[in-house]
């Protein structure tokens, strides 16, 4: 059947990666960050997983060791940038007006808006979404997925790209685990089974109202790992 068909239609191989421009742009951005002595770290996770709360705690601690700035991504409002500024670091808010992820050109523009001197450690909080941001690197050296215990025990398994295509996972809100019938250790074990090289951390509010963050895998603490 194909003979006639072949005469009429010519098949041309293309093999073009559709996200190639985005990937290239991210690589260029990473190179220019490196050249400027900036280490970029990305945070991604569902809305309400605790990304900004984590940053509010981390920023003052990291500022003791490095010059820190934050880029916040949200569909709307500058609430998160204001929270980070209140925590002491310069922050720029990117409103995507509905877009499901940040991209490298948005981050490049936001970085230019950060005051001088530019940071040594740049934390980039992506739009709340456990799916799309994974596909769009924005010049980061490390990417971290934040998954809260309240989202359900099997979330690492249900969102494999978020575990396989990041360097670390923070299982947040472990203080809620008993109320939502979730075992955070099982979540950590899922992550390690899926991606043995991934770092895993737990976070929860302790009795004094402080966010406590601990390594769940016996490795270095989160701050040291982020600083690199």
């Amino acid at each position: 059947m194909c003979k006639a068909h072949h005469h009429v239609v010519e098949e041309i191989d293309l093999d073009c990666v559709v996200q190639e421009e985005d990937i290239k742009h991210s690589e260029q951005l990473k190179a220019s960050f490196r050249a400027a002595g900036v280490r970029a770290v990305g945070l991604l996770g569902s809305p309400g997983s605790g990304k900004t709360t984590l940053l509010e705690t981390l920023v003052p601690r990291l500022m003791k060791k490095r010059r820190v700035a934050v880029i916040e991504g949200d569909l709307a409002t500058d609430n998160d940038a204001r929270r980070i500024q209140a925590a002491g670091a310069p922050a720029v808010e990117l409103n995507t007006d509905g877009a499901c992820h940040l991209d490298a050109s948005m981050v490049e523009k936001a970085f230019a808006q950060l005051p001088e001197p530019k940071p040594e450690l740049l934390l980039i909080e992506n739009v709340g979404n456990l799916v799309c941001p994974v596909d769009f690197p924005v010049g980061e050296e490390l990417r971290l997925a934040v998954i809260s215990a309240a989202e359900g025990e099997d979330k690492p398994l249900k969102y494999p790209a978020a575990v396989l295509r990041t360097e670390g996972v923070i299982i947040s809100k472990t203080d809620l685990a008993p109320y939502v019938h979730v075992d955070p250790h099982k979540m950590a074990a899922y992550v390690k089974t899926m991606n043995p090289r991934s770092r895993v951390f737990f976070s929860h509010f302790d009795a004094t109202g402080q966010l406590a963050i601990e390594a769940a895998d016996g490795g270095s603490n989160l701050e040291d790992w982020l600083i690199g």
Partner: protein
Amino acid sequence: MHEASLAANVLKIVSRAAAGKESRVRQITVSVGQLAGVMPDALLFAFEALKKQTLLTSATLKLEKEPVTACCEDCGHEYQPQAFPYTCPICQSHVFRITNGEAVTVKRMEIKKGD
């Protein structure tokens, strides 16, 4: 929900490659990696909607699933992992690097030959 921008990129890549023969492009084959956060139906829908604004109005989009491929970091063997934990069939190592299944790729296009 970034399938619309992916569909626009597919149309851009094919238009560029077709260079003057856009109206003769028929089937475009695109592979979608299993780890690319892409919804096939949304990609097809966006393609159909956006192609009307291009010269590729006779083109149809065919999607293929691209499985995950892992490269064993211990022995270098490339394999298609099945279930977690990903295990190298040669040396049983669990340490790997993903080599395929993350991208959306325009594989090929068919162009109707001119008279």
